[in-house]
Each structure stands twice: as structure tokens, then as C-alpha cells.
């Protein structure tokens, strides 16, 4: 598998070189920006909407013929995920089979200016890892009799239902083949990390230019402090939560008694 990856990397490198040679000739380049490069998770975080906008820079008049499309991909940090499946045992539903999905992003959103199929060709989808199934990596061998594809699909379905994986077709507004913009909604149940953001310019489904940047998602303030304390000094955190809870309980009952008396 590593060998194959290496091979793909080689192909990618070759393609990148090829593109560098082609690009000046085609003369179309994407320049883009984000409304924010940093998302702070605070105690009252309810999600965040990121505006992604940009323009197509040209040295020569736009080529005619094949339509210009824009594809935007925002991808959260990837982690291994254990997917468990329930089955009926002794009359109740119990987790029985498990498959380790080697890597699945915690968040994945694709927005396109046309339908996904019209915006990117199958070959370039594979090459640039754009559609959702391309984001999930499954290499380990599964137990016998299990189809690991079912488990990978379950990841897509469950995270899709939670609003974490989404494909939004026709969501990128493209004006006069030059200016584009789209909004990506980051939901409240985000995990921390670097969110890789890619913007592709395609002609006839083939990538003509790409731009990549990072959105930093971080817990801040009190949330940051609590999370760090809980993980780095768990004993201190445990004692502190007991003290705070006892004080809050006592305080609330004292306050209530005071209110009743007056």
C-alpha cells in the first residue's frame, strides 16, 4: 500500500510539474481569501460561517469552449475511527463487529459551482481527493466475513447526519467567469485542529489551478483552560470540579433560602 501511495505521490509530483508548464500557457490562476483564518470555540460557540471568495487571474483572454467551474473543499483533521456494528444477541442489540477505519476527517465539506460530476472529472477527483469517499482511508485488513466498505459508508452516513460531512452542489456563486464566493457552515460540534481548505479551478472537469490555505480551529479562553487542565493535570481538575460543585450546590441552596425569606 505504501508503495502504491509512493507511486501516487510520484504521479502527483509529475502532474504538478506538468501543470507548472501548462499553467502559464493557459494563463488562469485562482486567487482566494477567507473571511477568517481562525475559528475560536468559546463557551457560547454555536458554529461559524466562513466566507470563501476569490477571483480568476488571467494573463490572456479567457479560453472559450470548456466551462469554468470552482470547487471548494474544507477538511478537518483526520483521525482513526473504530466503527462498530450492532447485531441481535440474546434478544438485545449489542455491538458485535468492529472495523478500524484508518483515517477519516472530523469534518468535510465540498462546495461546487455546478453539480459535483460536472465540476470535476472522475480522474481528477481521484487525483486530488475531492469527493467524500476519497477522504476516508481504509487500509487495514478486516475480520473475515466483514465488508469494510459498509463500515466506511457508515462513517459517511453518520457524520453526514450530524452535519459534519456535506456536499453542496451549485453553492459556489461564479460571476462572469471571474469572481466567485461561497459560504461554508462549520457546525457547533467541531473538533480542534487545522482545517485544510482547498480551492480548485477546473476547465471541463480538469483542474487548471489550485489554492490551499488553513483555517485554525481552537478552543479559547475558559474552554481552552478547562480542557487543558482536565487532560494535563487530571487530579487537580478532579479536585477542582468537586470543590466547585460543592460550592455551587451550597451557594444555590443558600441563595434560594435567602430569596424565600425575603
Amino acid at each position, binding site marked *: 500500500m505504501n508503495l502504491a501511495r509512493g507511486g501516487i505521490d510520484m504521479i502527483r509530483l509529475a502532474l504538478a510539474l506538468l501543470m507548472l508548464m501548462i499553467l502559464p500557457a493557459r494563463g488562469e490562476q485562482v486567487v482566494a481569501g477567507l473571511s477568517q483564518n481562525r475559528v475560536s*470555540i*468559546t*463557551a*457560547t*460557540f*454555536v*458554529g461559524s460561517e466562513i466566507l470563501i471568495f476569490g477571483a480568476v487571474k488571467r494573463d490572456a483572454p479567457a479560453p472559450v469552449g470548456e466551462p469554468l467551474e470552482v470547487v471548494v473543499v474544507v477538511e478537518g483533521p483526520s*483521525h*482513526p*475511527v*473504530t*466503527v*462498530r*456494528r*450492532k*447485531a*441481535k444477541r440474546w*434478544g*438485545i*442489540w*449489542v*455491538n458485535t463487529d*468492529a472495523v*478500524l*477505519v*484508518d483515517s477519516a476527517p472530523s469534518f468535510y465539506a465540498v462546495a461546487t459551482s455546478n453539480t459535483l460530476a460536472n465540476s470535476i472529472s472522475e480522474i481528477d477527483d481521484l487525483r486530488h481527493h475531492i469527493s467524500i469517499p476519497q477522504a476516508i482511508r481504509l487500509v487495514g485488513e478486516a475480520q473475515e466475513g466483514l465488508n469494510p466498505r459498509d*463500515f466506511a459508508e*457508515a*462513517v459517511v*452516513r*453518520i*457524520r453526514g*447526519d450530524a452535519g459534519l460531512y456535506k456536499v453542496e452542489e451549485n453553492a459556489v456563486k461564479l460571476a462572469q467567469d471571474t469572481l466567485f464566493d461561497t459560504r461554508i457552515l462549520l457546525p*457547533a*460540534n467541531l*473538533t480542534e485542529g487545522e482545517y485544510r481548505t482547498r480551492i480548485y479551478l477546473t476547465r471541463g472537469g480538469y483542474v487548471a489551478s489550485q489554492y490551499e490555505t488553513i483555517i485554525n480551529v481552537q478552543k479559547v479562553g*475558559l*474552554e481552552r483552560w*478547562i*480542557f487543558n487542565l*482536565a*487532560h494535563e493535570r*487530571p*487530579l487537580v*481538575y*478532579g*479536585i*477542582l*470540579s*468537586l470543590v*466547585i*460543585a*460543592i460550592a*455551587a*450546590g*451550597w451557594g*444555590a*441552596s443558600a441563595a*434560594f433560602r435567602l430569596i*424565600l425569606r425575603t
Partner: protein
Amino acid sequence: MQIYLPIAEVSVNAFLLLGLGGIVGILSGMFGVGGGFLMTPLLFFIGIPPAVAVATEANQIVASSFSGVLAHFKRKTVDLRMGLVLLVGGLIGAALGVQLFNYLKAMGQVDLLVKLSYVIFLGIIGGLMFLESLRAIMKTRGGAPVSTRRKHTWVHNLPFKMKFRTSGLYISVIPPIIVGVLVGILAAIMGVGGGFIMVPAMIYLLGMPTKVVVGTSLFQIIFVTAFTTLLHATTNFTVDMGLAVLLLIGGVIGAQIGARIGVKLKAEQLRILLAIMVLAVCGKLALDLLLMPSELYELGAGGH
């Protein structure tokens, strides 16, 4: 107002949590129970991960029992010696329980363990309570007096006897330690204080006088749940401070209101109401296990 819980990593409505705390608080004030066995399943229903619900609830129980035990100390209705013996068992039980919890968590079966324990215990307790209060209602209607007599059982023939002055008992320390261990295990895997098991065990098994039972069990519960909280906090990182405080504020206020309502209702009616509620929660959890879930797959943190 949505609030992001830093440890549970979910965003929930703060007023929903205050309200839940309040409702469970009213019930616990009315019936004189801890309420942990109702709160933890309710937290599952609103989408808090079971591991976080159990650990956080243990934290909350410490706080809500604290003001209770102070009142009992003032009235001198705590058998400290018995409390300490129960506590020794409780600490052992909590350590065992957290071990079991972590072992099953690694196997992906912790939700099943927690839910199954709830179905079994709520089913038994709710059923017994329902039948008993039904019988009591029948009896009071018939007018026959309910007699209680202390019996001499096998409990009194065990070695390592000890004098418990406040309770007026001279019994072996083995049964209280065993009761303590069982309650400790329950505290660790179910996120409950265990009063609903301990109180009947103290009355019927150990033969303690009713007036010291509640204070003594509260005394034991505080230390066992505090220990459980620390164990969960250090091994699982699943105690959510914010969640605990919100539930607690609602809970304490609710308990005060509940205690005032409770005085106006008759004991049997109260008990039968509580029994019905316990059975309803039990039924809901049982259905979750029995009916085919709409999503058969479940995601867990990766790695082994």
C-alpha cells in the same frame, strides 16, 4: 442559550440543562432520593456521551449530598462508625467498578453495560416499589396496622463483630463491607449514589434504625462518589465541570421546591408515583436495547 461543553464536546441548551436539573431536583426533594438514577439516563436521552454522563453525575451527587449530610450531622443522625465501614467497602467497589468500566470501554461495550445495569436495577427497584406501595395502599384502606419486628438472621452469626453505638447494633463488619462494595461498583458504572440500594439493605439486612439510615448513607455516598469522580477524571477525562455546575444549580433549587411539595402528599401516593416514573425510564432504556436501532453502526475513537 446554547453552551459548548468543553469535555463532552457537544453544544447544548443551558436552560435545558438547568430545567433537567430542576425537574430531577424536584423529584428528589419530593421523594427523598438522590436522583442520580433518573438524571444519568436523561442525560443519555439528550445526547451526552454515556461515559461523560456517568462521570459528571458522580461529581454532581457529591455536591448535592453535601448539604444533606450537614443537616443530618446537626441532628446527630449519622452513624459515623457504620459509615466508615461502609466507606471501606465503597472505595474498594468504586475502584473495581472503574476498572470494569474502562475495560469494557476499550471493548466498545460500555454503553451496553451502563444501559443494561440501568434496565435491570430500575426494573427491580421500580417493580418492588410499585408492588409494595400498592399493598400499603390496600392495607391502609383495610385498616390493618403494619407491624415491623427485628429478626435474628444469618447476618448476626458472622465473625469480626463490631459495636455500632449510634445504631445500637453489635454485628459483623462483613455484611456492611459487602453492601459498600456493591454500592461502590454501582456508583462507578451507573453514576448513581446508590442510596436506593443501600437504604433498603441497611434497614432489612443490617437492621439499622430508620432514623440514622439516610444520614449514614449520605455520608458514605459523598466519599464514594468523590472517589469515583477522581478516578473517572484521572483515567477517562470524562468529568465535565460546566455540565455538573449547570445541573447542580437547577437541582438544588428544584430539591427545595420538591421538599415543600412532598410534605403535602401522602407517602404511599408519592411512592407509587416514583415507582411509575422509574418503570417508565426503565422501559424506554429497555426498548432501546430490544428494538432494532435505526442506525446499526456506531463510531468510536480509533486506535486500540
